[in-house]
């Protein structure tokens, strides 16, 4: 069964550094998402991406964040200058045409020191 994959599984970085989190969505899916989950808290929507552009973003997704689909398979989340409060689990998800289920990747645990 096809699945969403994410790399790395764990990223440790220093405050102020840039990080890029990578996701490979399911191949025939058209909508892509990033969510984050701070330890012990709920899953929060960050951004959705369709047709090579952002379709919706939350208040969390400020100028420090960007997303890109650099090729036909990868979908990346970049945090330009990480802050301590960016430490969280970041989940990528993808789906086909609506209505459809979003399928989640295993997540990348980001630790900012």
């Amino acid at each position, binding site marked *: 069964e096809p699945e969403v994959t994410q790399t790395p599984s764990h990223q440790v970085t220093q405050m102020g550094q840039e990080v890029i989190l990578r996701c490979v969505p399911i191949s025939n899916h058209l909508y892509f998402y990033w969510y984050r989950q701070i330890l012990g808290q*709920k*899953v*929060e*929507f960050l951004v959705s991406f369709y047709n090579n552009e952002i379709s*919706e973003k939350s208040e969390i997704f400020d100028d420090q964040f960007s997303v890109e689909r650099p090729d036909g398979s990868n979908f990346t989340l970049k945090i330009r200058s990480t802050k301590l409060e960016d430490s969280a689990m970041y*989940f990528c998800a993808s789906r086909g045409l609506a209505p459809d*289920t979003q399928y989640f*990747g295993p*997540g990348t645990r980001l630790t900012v020191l």
Partner: protein
Amino acid sequence: AQSVSQHNHHVILSEAASLELGCNYSYGGTVNLFWYVQYPGQHLQLLLKYFSGDPLVKGIKGFEAEFIKSKFSFNLRKPSVQWSDTAEYFCAVSWGNNDMRFGAGTRLTVKP
């Protein structure tokens, strides 16, 4: 604003007890409803979903949920829980073609 509420933060049950986790959402109209489960140290997995049709939806592992439009609710149920059901359960809703929003989650602990 669109929101999803899960009333129970932490539920503790003994094995074989029945389970019901509440989920309510704001606004009516067309909704797609989901329950995801997150086992300790693992990622989100879909338990069940409702798009249309029979409001009683059956999912994996013996879970079911009922969509009650008049109450804006989509409660998750299981007649007899097992120790292996210990996990975090998230209700999620999307309105029309909009993107999904999650509830705060309910931690379920099942005592053997």
